[in-house]
């Protein structure tokens, strides 16, 4: 089996995607099929091939270091569900 039900549950936790218990089996099967399909690539001999970092044959354009943005916090804070003292309010974060 390319992927186990336990892994499906772990991935859904990491991605914060809620899945119902009765879906786990179906998802394991479906995603397993996709993985098996993609795994076919592994049979290709890539010894002589340089790794590709990006499909676009281009390099990163750089930005000059200057401040171009102004303070728009009023707009951004204005659309947040909860704000206090100019801070976005979220459920308690415990470290």
């Amino acid at each position, binding site marked *: 089996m390319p992927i186990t039900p336990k892994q499906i549950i772990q991935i859904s936790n990491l991605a914060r995607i809620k899945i119902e218990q009765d879906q786990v089996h179906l998802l394991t099967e479906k995603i397993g099929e996709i993985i098996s399909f993609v795994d076919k690539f592994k049979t290709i001999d890539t010894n002589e091939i340089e790794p590709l970092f990006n499909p*676009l044959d281009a390099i990163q354009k*750089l930005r000059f270091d200057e*401040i171009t*943005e102004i*303070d728009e916090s009023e707009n951004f804070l204005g659309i947040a569900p909860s704000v206090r003292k*100019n801070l976005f*309010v979220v459920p*308690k*974060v415990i470290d």
Partner: protein
Amino acid sequence: MGLEVHLQLATSSKIFSGSSTAFGGAPNSQACYIDLAMPGTLPVFNELALRCAVMFGLGIDAEINKISVFDRKNYFYPDLPKGYQISQLHHPIIGRGTFDLFLGDKTIYQIGITRAHLEEDAGKSVHSHFDKESGIDLNRAGIPLLEIVTDPDFRSSAQVISYLKALHILVTYLGISDGNMAEGSMRCDVNISLRKQGVDSLGTRTEIKNINSFRFIERAISFEINRQIDILEDGGEIIQETRLYDSELDETRSMRSKEIANDYRYFPEPDLLPIHITDDYISKIRNSMPELPLAKRSRFIETYDITEYDADVLISSREIADYYEEVVTTCMNSKLAANWIQTELLAKLNKSEQSISESPVSAKKLGLLLSKIVDETISGKIAKQVFSEIWSTGEDPLLLIEKRNLKQMDDSSEIESIVQTVIDQNADQVKQYLSANEQKRKKLLGYFVGQIMKSSNGKANPKAVNQILSDKLSEQP
């Protein structure tokens, strides 16, 4: 032990956006739509952040990767609006290098640098004033960081501290970071693992996160080492985990969040293309590099003939080193300059909590003052008086010496008359001197010299005094 240091790079705008990186702005006033991960926005890489990283690579003589790639590190946390941090995993900008540490005993201890990579900082959670909630300030989100990772080469907290100090000196010399620990420009995670004596492999490690002062680093390390020893000696096992140092309770404790299997599901960042660095780009940066601390250290020891200890103090910042060299060129005595800067200038600056660039006495003025000791116009004692006066008044030392008539008395007839007076006034001591043995004579000579200096207000040239005094005493019947 191995270290991960997060260094904030000295850019004025963020790594992928044009928001300001200034410290201390009102919450969320320096977070634009890119930093907030608004739909449809794209990051654009800041050239200065790249240049800073390359400078660091050149500074430690590390491999600089001609192609480097950004990756997404995925995790959910309220201070991370995108749900991922843009970082570098497989192709960091800086590869292997070494860092030389001088540990005071003339030996060089080499720390392996595993890698250094570019990444963006996250926002800050604020807990005070909030009860069952937290506040999020995203001003730090997108601040450029260079994460510098070492091999597990450290064997003591003293080594860790001296590495951090040396690293701090290096990055401030290069001007790639202000290295301000209190403002979070230099943060340190320590990975600690133990092994039994004679065993090669290291045990399970724990990581202590985000310690922001030298003192706390030392304490956190010693607490954690003792904690691990206790567990192992009781036959227990160390759990690989991230721990937080609490400076108030002076202990480390397990972090409850972020602990669910550090599975960040890295993948190449599709919004950014690979970075290509040309040899030309690197050599331009190489040519613009300042003299590095260690090179300066050896040059100072060699050219100025000063001790290693003195050199370490004098190179501890670029400003102090520059100041020293200007004083030396003015007074032409490198050892005197080294002594004065350490015992007088730095001590006074320390007291008044000023940096050398704020010094009330400029390098030029100190140099001129010392030049008057060198040419024997004034004594060291008088020079100290002049120094404290120009410290508070900002006056020119040469004018002050002139004005106060502080010049050393070289006129032998003047000195002679003072010496004669002292001899006349101390007939008993002179008698004692004449009948005394060698050792006692030395003591009495010191007494006479003291009296003479006192009546000349410290201005008599000590060399001349000694000569005239011994002549006069030998003439006594």
